[in-house]
């Protein structure tokens, strides 16, 4: 069959500087590498998820990458209707013979930036601003706290969630306010896992002369010198791999878990933040990374028991 890959983004949209943008970058890279064009679609409301997937399938696209756990129900339905089309979903497990599920060990990446945050903090107080309050984001938070506490056991971590609905992903003003309230309480580094809302968090950090930590994509460049690092969640790699497998006729259904060892998560070091990362910090985070890969340090997965032991 001729190769017609497609991506359906989540509500944040293709250019959210974060999660969805990762998928877009992966698809773009695939296009650049192979010359094969792809089609993508930004939904505007929940009702369109099913319609978008069905339209892609009807038009003969395959593989189709659904970006985000919210596609679960829609994908279940549509995948059953189109058994010969290949689908992939990110951040969620959908069990169907024609669906590949890709999930990440966000806790591991978050642990690493937690280590960096603890070392960079002068006040021994750091913050976390989540987007929508869901188990997935708690998993980020928990890994982060783990990293901080492992580095400075006395450090304090403030946690805020922006909201409980989809809008929590796109409310930068609120994100900024939450970050400021954490700065007021003494925090000097704040990590966000809040999609578009996080733009406000990083902005507030930059405005206040504190440090932010980006998420998903490399956000170091948003405020050079003001973003300590970014927790990378390689949605781009995942998307690329799905497309590539589709091209090679090697589509593999089932669950793929991408952690540190698999290169699915990590932290970003580039020109924008290299002045912020001291050699000691780099050494510490490299060690933590090695420990996790080796299995000597196990980062707790919040979603395994809905609890965070740190």
């Amino acid at each position, binding site marked *: 069959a001729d190769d017609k890959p497609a991506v359906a983004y989540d509500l944040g949209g293709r250019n959210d500087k974060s999660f969805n943008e990762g998928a877009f970058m992966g698809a773009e890279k695939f296009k650049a590498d192979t010359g094969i064009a792809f089609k*993508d*679609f*930004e*939904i*505007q*409301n*929940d*009702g*369109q998820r*099913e*319609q*978008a997937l*069905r*339209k892609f399938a*009807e038009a003969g696209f395959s593989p189709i990458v659904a970006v985000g*756990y*919210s596609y*679960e*129900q829609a994908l279940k339905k549509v995948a059953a*209707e189109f058994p010969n089309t290949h689908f992939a979903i990110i*951040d*969620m497990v959908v069990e169907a013979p024609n669906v590949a599920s890709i999930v990440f060990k966000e806790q591991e990446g978050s642990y690493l930036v937690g280590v960096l945050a603890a070392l960079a903090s002068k006040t021994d107080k750091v913050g976390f601003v989540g987007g929508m*309050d*869901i*188990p*997935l984001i708690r998993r980020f938070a928990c890994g982060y706290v783990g990293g901080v506490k492992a580095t400075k056991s006395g450090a304090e971590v403030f946690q805020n969630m922006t909201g*409980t*609905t*989809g809008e929590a992903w796109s409310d930068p003003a609120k994100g900024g306010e939450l970050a400021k309230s954490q700065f007021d309480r003494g925090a000097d580094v704040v990590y966000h896992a809040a999609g578009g809302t996080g733009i406000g968090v990083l902005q507030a950090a930059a405005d206040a002369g504190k440090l932010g930590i980006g998420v998903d994509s490399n956000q170091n460049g948003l405020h050079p010198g003001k973003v300590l690092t970014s927790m990378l969640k390689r949605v781009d790699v995942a998307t690329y791999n799905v497309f590539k497998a589709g091209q090679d006729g090697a589509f593999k259904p089932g669950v793929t878990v991408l952690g540190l060892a698999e290169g699915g998560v990590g932290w970003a070091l580039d020109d924008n933040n290299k002045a912020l990362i001291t050699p000691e910090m780099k050494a510490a985070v490299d060690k933590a990374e090695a420990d996790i890969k080796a299995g000597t340090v196990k980062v707790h997965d919040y*979603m395994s028991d*809905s609890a965070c032991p740190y």
Partner: protein
Amino acid sequence: MSGPSRELPRWVDIGLIPFVNLSAAFLVTGLVFLAIGESPVDSVIIMLNGAFGYGTGLGYTLFYTTNFIFTGLAFAVAFHAGLFNIGAEGQAYLGGLGVALVCLSLGFLPMVIIIPLAIIAAALFGAAWAFIPAYLQAKRGSHVVITTIMFNFIASALMIYLLVNVLSPKGSMNPETRTFDPNAHLPLIHDVLAGLGMAVARSPLNLSFIWALVCAVAVWLLLWHTTLGYQLRVLGANPSAAAYAGMKPQRLIVIAMMISGGLAGFLALNEIMGASNRLLLQFTAGYGFVGIAVALMGRSHPFGIVLSALLFGALYQGGADLSFEKPTITRDMIVVVQGLIILFAGALEHMFRPQIARFFASSWFKAKEA
């Protein structure tokens, strides 16, 4: 004694003027298309094809139409009673809660029992949410426009709370309920027709479409063929006359708003019980507000409402296809078009009337003198 000289012919009033208003809205829309560098003509073709050109598209069009019939009727009933209910959004939201509670808790019952129960629940919950603003308007004179706006927001907060903290299964990422048992799914039209040996394309179009048409007829009968409807219309046209005639305005206000809220609640039958089969956040997606435009376009008459709901349904579905085909056009464009229609067909409905009236007055004269 002269005849009805100031009157415009009826077809002008309910046909030509809305058509002219609509054309103005589409004209401006065309300009917006040009402004973003898209051909309006191409876009219209894509939209028409998307809305009517193939089975699934038509199914979606009618699916959206169903929503608009419900919210349009909801607005119209209150409007005839002189009440401006812009709370359909919240009432529909609560209607969803009613439907979900029935479907979640009674999913083991046979479908023939669940469906009427869900209809009742949708109406009751929607009506209950309309009751408070109605009561406050009737007894305390708080303006229903403002209170229903406030109640939209309160409904939203309440539903978020319930979905996040009470209704969503543990460990789930989305604040939404589990999927209902199959018995509690409204049959999809394509499944029903398949059962009858007719193959039509898949779409979320479901039995609530029929229910919407039934409601339209029922509203028509209610308003123009029952004493209650008569009283509601008197209340709307001349509240003092209603008091003079011994009607109970306070009670009528509450009744009108509750009927309105109940109709809005039916939106949930289509969206929740028919399409998504689970209760989710913000499923009302602005349909309640668009209902105002639908009703105004349809001159607050059920049959007009069905037609204008079809127009808005086509716009929705055609717009979805358009944004799918043309990456530069987002769904927001459809929001713009809706806004323009509301503006021209609603707020500016009198703009072209004097000119049209003058035209007819003059040709009237000519005909008379000839």
